[in-house]
């Protein structure tokens, strides 16, 4: 009896490790790298808190498409582009500070909705292949974005302020300085605890978004999304408009990504016009997966844990790498390598989990058949 309990405990632990392999791996990595990097705890905590404020909003936008069964939304990049376009307009108008941030958010909404509708209707035509499709859409629209920003802005779309225009008269400069709105959200109501700056307002906004997501799950629309995410056909038979529901989930995600990008950039203080958005989707998805999320299941807790672990690794890896090999590039390399690695592992695990659950029914059949053979054998002996 005792041994079977032990065995159960053992299999439970194994199951737990198997289901949470990615976060556990990252905890181990961080555990070894933190002492090696030689950073003081207050510096480390300060950095992590800053990055949490910077990134969490962006990552939260991934939750809703996962709920609707559309997997990891690589096309959140589209929202990021919308946010950037809004910021370009706001800096052209020279409206800075908090009003600038709010105005940028308002400007970003129509762009986000438009891009979200486009992306959503394409994804509705590619059911079951949402992730690869959204990934490619993000590349396609990156080209479109460059066309608009590089050639149309200043020539067709009026841009007045010379500081953001290229010297040739049209197109936007490589970097747009957002110095005048740098960390304006973070600094308002900021609290310092033992030298660690807590951007209270940013966290409040993030808290509100979390509440929104929790509330959203309880709405009819949220319930419909969960239904659509689990079985499209059944949802359709019950009279839920599947396509429309999926479309809305992508639009919400894109709009939120737009807001998230604006929060991200106000923290950074400058906008790299042509590259800020390019890696953002990848890093956000990697962070979410590091937090223990999978392709079909993600929670707010995954987002927070993911940001903390992923960015701790980001902060300590370069100096830990330098401490070991004397070359800080190795850490830089390690970051990118890790992001892609994590995404790959998560995708493979998702598939293998599906397969495991399928073979479980076969095992049950096998056991039943074996029992029957046994009892038939006994009967024959009698």
């Amino acid at each position: 009896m005792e041994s079977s309990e032990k065995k159960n405990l053992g299999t439970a632990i194994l199951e737990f490790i198997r289901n949470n392999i990615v976060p556990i791996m990252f905890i181990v990595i961080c555990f070894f790298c933190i002492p090696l990097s030689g950073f003081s705890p207050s510096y480390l905590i300060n950095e992590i808190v800053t990055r949490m404020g910077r990134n969490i909003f962006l990552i939260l936008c991934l939750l809703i498409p996962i709920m609707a069964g559309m997997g990891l939304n690589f096309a959140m990049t589209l929202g990021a582009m919308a946010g950037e376009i809004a910021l370009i307009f706001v800096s052209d108008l020279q409206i800075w500070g908090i009003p600038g941030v709010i105005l940028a958010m308002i400007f970003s909404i129509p762009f986000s909705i438009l891009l979200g509708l486009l992306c959503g209707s394409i994804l509705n035509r590619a059911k079951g292949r949402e992730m690869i499709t959204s990934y490619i859409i993000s590349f396609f629209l990156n080209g479109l974005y460059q066309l608009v920003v590089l050639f149309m802005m200043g020539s067709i779309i009026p841009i007045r302020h010379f500081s953001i225009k290229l010297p040739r008269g049209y197109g936007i400069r490589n970097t747009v300085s957002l110095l005048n709105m740098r960390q304006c959200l973070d600094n308002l109501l900021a609290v310092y605890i033992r030298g660690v700056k807590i951007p209270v307002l940013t966290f409040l906004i993030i808290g509100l978004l979390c509440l929104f997501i929790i509330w959203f799950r309880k709405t009819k629309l949220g319930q419909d999304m969960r239904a659509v995410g689990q079985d499209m056909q059944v949802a359709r038979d019950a009279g839920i408009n599947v396509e429309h529901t999926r479309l809305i989930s992508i639009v919400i995600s894109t709009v939120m990504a737009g807001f998230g990008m604006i929060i991200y950039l106000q923290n950074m203080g400058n906008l790299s016009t042509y590259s800020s958005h390019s890696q953002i989707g990848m890093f956000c998805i990697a962070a979410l997966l590091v937090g223990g999320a999978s392709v079909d299941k993600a929670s707010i807790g995954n987002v927070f844990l993911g940001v903390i672990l992923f960015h701790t690794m980001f902060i300590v890896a370069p100096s830990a790498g330098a401490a070991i090999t004397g070359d800080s590039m190795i850490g830089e390399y390690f970051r990118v390598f890790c992001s892609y690695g994590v995404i790959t592992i998560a995708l493979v695990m998702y598939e293998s989990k599906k397969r495991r659950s399928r073979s479980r029914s076969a095992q049950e059949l096998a056991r039943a058949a074996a029992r029957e053979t046994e009892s038939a054998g006994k009967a024959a002996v009698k």
Partner: protein
Amino acid sequence: MSNAPLLEMRNISKDFFGNKVLVDINLSLREGEVLGLCGENGAGKSTLMKILFGMDVIRETGGYGGDVLLCGERAEFATPFDALAAGIGMVHQEFSLIPGFTATENILLNREPKKHSVLSEVFGDRLNALDRREMDQRSAAAIDKMGVHIDADMTINSMPVGHKQFTEIARELSKEQLRLLILDEPTAVLTEKEAEALLESIRGMSRRGIAIIFITHRLHEILAVCDKVVVMRDGRVVQDCPAKETSVPEITRQMVGRDVDLAGGEAREVRDLSSAKNILSVRGLWVDMPGELVRHVDLDVREGEILGIGGLAGQGKLGIPNGIMGLYEAGGKVVFDGAEIPLNNPRRCLDSSLAFVSEDRRGVGLLLDESLEWNVAFPAMQIQNKFLIRLLGGLIQWRDAKAIHAVTEKYIDELAIKCTGTRQSARELSGGNQQKICLAKAFALEPKFLFVSEPTRGIDVGAKALVLDALRRFNRESGVTVVMISSELEELRSVCDRIAIISGGRVSGILPAAAASEEFGMLMVSKVV
């Protein structure tokens, strides 16, 4: 209240592109009445229910003839949602449930009560929060109405199968307007005890005035619970009488018994092969083929015979060849010609000269876009290195186009395949001729043992006779042992020496082909699960 029955179907007929599936069906059903509907697969039961339910497929294939009357008024439903609104509910054979939702959430799927919120004024009522308490109450009421207790807070994927079925029934019962409930083989997945509970709940529903159409293969259940029995065969109603006046053997005879023998008067030759050795013996076979689960099959096949495997759809007869040939996950022991065959390994089966003509000829059987030559010769080339010219001591292998052409010609002649030439692509052939190509492909392998699964599905009568004849000849002339799986009993009886009937994933009995069709009918329904 008018005296008109709740549901009346008058002179319903339906054909799919000239192929008559329903002829002159008349049914009537009063409030609270339970009607048992039975018939073999393909008798037209599902088509009839689809008409009643306004399914898209009926309209897309040209509508139907006759009238459906609800309470004396003519009703025509454009979509299933209209039928639902009119108070008709249906529990399908396949579950239509969201796996990660609780029973309550599934019961009220897309009909959830909502709490009003301010945001919904702006963004529409989908942003109203769900009223969980009201949901719990309604689902509890529905479960109560059903009379079988299930845990409303359990998610579907952790439920036993029977409870899933009850969840579906509760969902229909939670609809206020429900007047007529169609249960399509609801007991197929239930344990005996659960089935008993279901029958009790059917009685309860009928007392509340809900009329029920109960489709099942378990005939004793029909007699236990129904007021009226309707038996269908070949698209016609062959029996319509009160349940008290009939019996299981009577219904069985009506279901399968054909008055005239369709085998075509051809004298069936009786062979005694009981002294032949067993070429294939199967012990404790299970196969995880969705929809065709094989639970525990013991079967011996004698050398040189044609063994038929029959049974109702979904009972596992298709799972047997698919499992042995390694197309679905399987377990158990299979001994062929003295050597054990490893399961889950299609290549080893083919190497030990077993061949399989799949029921899924478009998916598994044919390379649709390739020429007939390729289709016929490809497996033989791949597996047995036939039709190859070896150069440099086997280092380079060249296709022997001439031999391939010759063998294809030979089979086109033998099987009377209608085509423009050996290079025509397989896609362009008709269904019957495609089936013949599948056979030719298997014949070209020159196997010792051949599984043929549903060889005549979807082909016309003339082609059927040719295909069956080719099989018989192949068996007689080359001495190949053939196991033929078919859902048409008459077809099996015309070709086979012995017929094994599969029911509930097990062999329910093996009879000589000359046995009476009632005996087969009894075996078919004996262990239905």
